């Protein structure tokens, strides 16, 4: 079993900020837009060095999505940034018609996704965004797991021609993926090898899955842990290859169970390889105020929850 350690913690949104700043230097077509959240989206360096390619839209998210679609006509690569709630649910129809149906090269970059937004509470804690975005034809949906992976994903989506939804968050979390990684859209990352149970995790839950893997290993259970950073297109081959080995699986995400990663994994398994699947996620409820840790505990999104789900899935094997 590979051991993952970390020396530093950072927020994934800062990984985006580092990525967009690098893109500013390397790609003259990259334009950054925001709806009055430049600081929260870590755009300061980009704004300082590339003021002409920074578009402040004010608190007008619908317009920001349309302006982004228009900027692509003229060869620009717009990165539209705001909180995940305002980047998806608030502007679903604008994304649907002006971006996805029109197949525009717009990158929707969304911070403060999920419960770990914390104290602001349920109005801002969107848990449905992955579901909404993955349903849209032409859309690529990415949910990276740490600072380095978010930075790498930010660089990668600039090279991809088409609409992308990139989701990241607010809390500081361990940095455990390599700084020099090459991010391949749609290619899952094998975190650890095992034969007892598959764990498919995305976003902030990947670190929890690693910790769960360590706890299971102490009991002699070897988990096959896979980081599904791209929700769509889903790496179906990686999922099937893993479950062929293990015979059962757990999905783990900071998202509603309806429409999330678990839903996608269930579809793949039901169609190709019916197998026991336990799902870690939020059960048809809104969030609430609290610290990120308190919320992850209360809503059952921790390593301990993944361990319990893994054992349950293993028991269901025939």
């Amino acid at each position, binding site marked *: 079993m590979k051991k993952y350690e970390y020396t530093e913690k950072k927020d994934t949104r800062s990984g985006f900020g580092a990525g967009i700043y690098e893109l500013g230097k390397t790609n003259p077509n990259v*334009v950054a837009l925001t709806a009055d959240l430049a600081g929260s989206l870590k755009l300061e360096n980009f704004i300082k060095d590339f003021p*002409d*390619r920074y*578009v402040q*839209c*004010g608190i*007008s998210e*619908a*317009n*920001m*999505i*349309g*302006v*982004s*679609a*228009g*900027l*692509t*006509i*003229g*060869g*620009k690569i*717009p990165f539209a940034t705001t909180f995940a709630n305002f980047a998806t649910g608030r502007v679903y*129809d*604008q994304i*649907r*018609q*002006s971006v996805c*149906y*029109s*197949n*525009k090269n717009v990158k929707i970059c969304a911070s403060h996704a999920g419960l770990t937004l914390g104290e602001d509470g349920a109005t801002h804690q969107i848990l449905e965004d992955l579901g909404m975005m993955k349903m849209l034809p032409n859309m690529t949906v990415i949910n990276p797991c740490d600072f380095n992976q978010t930075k790498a994903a930010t660089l990668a989506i600039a090279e991809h021609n088409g609409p992308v939804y990139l989701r990241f968050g607010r809390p500081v979390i361990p940095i455990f993926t390599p700084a020099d990684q090459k991010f391949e859209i749609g290619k899952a990352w094998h975190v650890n090898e095992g034969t007892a149970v598959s764990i498919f995790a995305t976003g902030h839950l990947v670190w929890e899955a690693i910790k769960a893997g360590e706890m299971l290993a102490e009991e002699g259970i070897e988990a096959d842990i896979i980081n599904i950073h791209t929700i769509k297109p889903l790496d179906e081959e990686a999922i099937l290859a893993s479950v062929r080995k293990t015979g059962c699986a757990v999905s783990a995400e900071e998202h509603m169970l309806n429409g999330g990663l678990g839903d996608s994994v269930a579809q793949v398994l039901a169609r190709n390889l019916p197998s026991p699947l336990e799902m870690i996620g939020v059960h048809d409820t809104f969030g609430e105020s609290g610290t990120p840790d308190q919320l992850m505990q209360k809503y059952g999104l921790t390593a301990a929850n993944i361990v319990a789900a893994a054992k349950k899935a293993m028991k269901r094997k025939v």
Partner: protein
Amino acid sequence: MELQQLENTAIAVRRDIVRMVNAVNSGHPGGSLGCTDLLVALYFDVMHLKTDADGNVVFDMDGQGEDLFFLSNGHISPVFYSVLARRGYFPVSELATFRKLDSRLQGHPTTAEHLPGVRVASGSLGQGMSVACGAAFAKKLNGDDTHVYVLMGDGEQQEGQVWEAAMFAPHHKLGNLTAIIDLNGQQIDGPTKLVMNNRDLGAKYEAFGWNVEHMEGNNMAEVVSKLKEARKDAEVPTMILMHTEMGFGVDYMMGSHKWHGVAPNAEQLAVALNQLPLTAGMADY
């Protein structure tokens, strides 16, 4: 193009519109007929379009170095398709496929079928001016001094997103943008004043920082001159309140919301075509 030729073209386009919607017993003739003069003036005279050595229009999605037009009120697709076809973006014969299965001429315009001339999908109202703002912004970044036009409906002004874009364009000094509102006073459920009164749109846009102009939209000479005037260099975008009559050119359709989204039957079509006699050199699709 000569004024008379523009007017002859407008007649042919109006014939296309009523024939297209009649053929599939669906579509939106009222607004299409009212906006015919505008689109003919733009595409046949005012706009600088990319052409090849033989003078034929060529289409690429980026549209750099040429003027752009966005149709925000996508339901008036019949006039858009007819004008694009007659300007040479695709064969006029293709107008016969409007709203049929596997056609590039969808009920509302889309890029999904790769129809030359269309740069964004529209239909869900209120989005086109935002897209036009983005395209105008890109032109400024590219040092491209061509112009961007967008057409909206007056009922469409009830969408909140329109006012987000209305704030954006003057704030970012998009003087290369001209927006036009088809002020026909009608929408699906009735007269705009009764459905949801827009009140004084001119005063509103002026307060938002626009240069506001008025134009008689069914007077070709005035349409051409006003559009050319609006191109002049400015730091602020121009909003043209275009006074039109829904259904213009077909007497029984004029001035009523009832022909917003209803197609004429065979008998009504014959009456309409009779009122729109083809001039010499023009032909139906």
